[in-house]
């Protein structure tokens, strides 16, 4: 925000803008406050950028191991070939050149909450006044019999975009016409609740054009899923869902959909109460999830595997001066989505500035919007506004919902156009 410059929070929170500026000159010689952000994704980037935009007297360091960032959002469209992998690739250059954020390309391996430092793989230690942890999700590799990290080249999860996305795309391209793709969906909660179903849609879209004898089967550990009636309606319209010619089949747990074990050698899964055997040509296991590794190892997660926070400030309930945002945190009614992370990061940025500069935190306001592309020019959406109520983030009454059923093709086309706009604007919010 061009006219949203440094220290306006302090100025405003302290009373008049003038008092704030005067305050700044009095305390000018003090050391700069240091914020360290772990994780350069949808949450971390926004937190770092919005702190600097609001107050460039705060020193912000962003720790991220990868120089290239591939958005998870829109990566299902890479699987179908609608987009290329390069079209979802971004870099962090502007965060340093334009916003003065110190980019450190390394992995955070330990947090010392008492000394208030972060240790990096490369050996450096960075001190902070406030730490924001936004590591995304990690996988419960011990949860599935016969599948772990050593198998992800052969059986990709593709639940983080990048090389995993490319592997799965190549497997789909190499698959014969008449092949079977199996996607397994872990128990909730997991990153991006509608994504498995959008993925199935995009794979069906690819099959319909190039391999019309093929099928995609979704083995689901959950009895219901996000935007379910809308997906089913879209699948019926575009992919013959419910007929014996359907490109997509959804197998809920009560029909034997819950994954039990994987035989990687045989490309076979065992699912359901009777451990029925299902053979795949392409296998996409979405592993059960938990908070990012650094969050778990630093004692930020509780026994659910996720991080409890004060839902107004995102400060950890377990460790002082550390905030957790995005997929790793427990954020009331908000789903684990990129847009949730974006919204939480902006609220967290204000909370961190208030904490460091001694202002009063304003009432938080959250939003989530999420589009799923079912086919060409055919998208559905869900949106909600969230506020803090009784200490918990809750959807505002009457302000949450999905696109309507039975909408016209023009309506779905407009949602697809808005989906692409959503993508352009959220990535510009992050990287430019």
């Amino acid at each position, binding site marked *: *925000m061009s006219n949203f410059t440094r220290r306006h929070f302090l100025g*405003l929170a302290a009373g008049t803008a003038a008092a704030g500026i005067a305050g700044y000159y009095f305390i000018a010689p003090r050391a700069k406050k240091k914020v360290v952000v772990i994780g350069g994704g949808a949450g971390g980037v926004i937190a770092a950028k919005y702190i600097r935009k609001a107050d460039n007297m705060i020193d912000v360091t962003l720790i991220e191991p990868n120089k290239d960032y591939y958005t998870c959002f829109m990566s299902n469209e890479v699987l179908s070939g609608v987009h290329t992998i390069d079209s979802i690739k971004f870099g962090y250059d502007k965060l340093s050149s334009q916003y003065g954020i110190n980019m450190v390309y390394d992995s955070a391996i330990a947090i010392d909450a008492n000394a208030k430092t972060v240790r990096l793989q490369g050996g450096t230690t960075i001190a902070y006044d406030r730490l924001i942890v936004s590591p995304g999700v990690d996988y419960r590799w011990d949860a599935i019999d016969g599948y772990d990290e050593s198998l992800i080249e052969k059986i990709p999860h593709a639940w983080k975009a990048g090389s995993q996305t490319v592997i799965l795309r190549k497997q789909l391209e190499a698959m014969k016409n008449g092949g079977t793709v199996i996607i397994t969906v872990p128990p909730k909660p997991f990153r991006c609740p509608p994504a498995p179903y959008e993925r199935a849609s995009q794979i069906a879209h690819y099959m319909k054009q190039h391999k019309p004898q093929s099928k995609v089967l979704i083995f689901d550990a959950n009895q219901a899923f996000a935007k379910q009636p809308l997906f089913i309606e879209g699948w019926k319209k575009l992919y013959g869902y419910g007929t014996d010619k359907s490109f997509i089949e959804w197998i809920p747990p009560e029909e034997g959909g819950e994954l039990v074990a994987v035989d990687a050698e045989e490309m076979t899964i065992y699912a359901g109460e009777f451990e029925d055997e299902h053979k795949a040509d392409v296998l996409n296991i979405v592993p059960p999830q938990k908070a990012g590794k650094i969050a778990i190892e630093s004692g930020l997660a509780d026994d659910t595997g996720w991080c409890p926070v004060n839902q107004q400030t995102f400060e950890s309930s377990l460790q002082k001066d550390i905030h957790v945002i995005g997929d790793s945190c427990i954020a009331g009614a908000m789903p684990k989505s990129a847009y949730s992370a974006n919204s939480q990061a902006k609220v967290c940025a*204000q909370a961190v500035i208030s904490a460091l500069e001694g202002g009063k935190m304003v009432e938080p306001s959250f939003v989530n919007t999420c589009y799923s592309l079912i086919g060409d020019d055919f998208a559905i959406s869900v949106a909600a*506004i*969230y506020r803090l109520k009784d200490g918990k983030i809750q959807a*505002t009454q009457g302000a949450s919902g999905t696109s309507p059923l039975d909408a016209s093709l023009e309506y779905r086309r407009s949602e697809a156009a*808005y989906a692409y*706009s959503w993508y352009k604007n959220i990535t*510009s919010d992050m990287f430019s």
Partner: protein
Amino acid sequence: MHFQKYKYILLLITGVIVNLPAKTLDTNTTAQVFMLVNTCVGCHGIDGSSLGPATPTIAGMRKPLFIKAMQDMKNGLRPSTVMGVVANGYTDEEIEMMADFFSKQKVVRYRQNVDLEKAQRGKELHKQYCDSCHKIEVRTQPLFNIAGQWMPYLRFRLSQFKNGDSMMASALEYFVLKNDSEERLEELIHFYGSQQ
């Protein structure tokens, strides 16, 4: 009917449109304003200037029009996709704060795929039919500035107008009647899309 319509236009121009208390906003609420508008810019672009291809730019939108748009969506009077739901999440006072913020933002216009011949013909049509309300050349428009607005959005809106949304329905009916064709609307869209 006609009187109603002109009264409505007058209201838009003078800015007195909804029955909100004419309260001046306290400067202390600026942090609150950013807390609110931060929820808009993820979709509508930085400071409300959208990168497109369809989500409209809301930067520079006149305050009463912004308020009316949000209130109409809230009340189900204006068709939308997600905004009907989103608008419901904000109080009248919050909507006014957002309106105030976006009305003060400079519009950033991005290049669009424009057919220059259509745009040229659209320019003439614009002068003849639309300029009296939607000033383009000088941009001190009394109504919403559609110069450089995203073309797919303009198409969606026109289609909504055709289905009877607000006073634009009769304006469009008049245009189509006079030009004997709906295709010429496309020329107008290319003209607006060509504006930088």
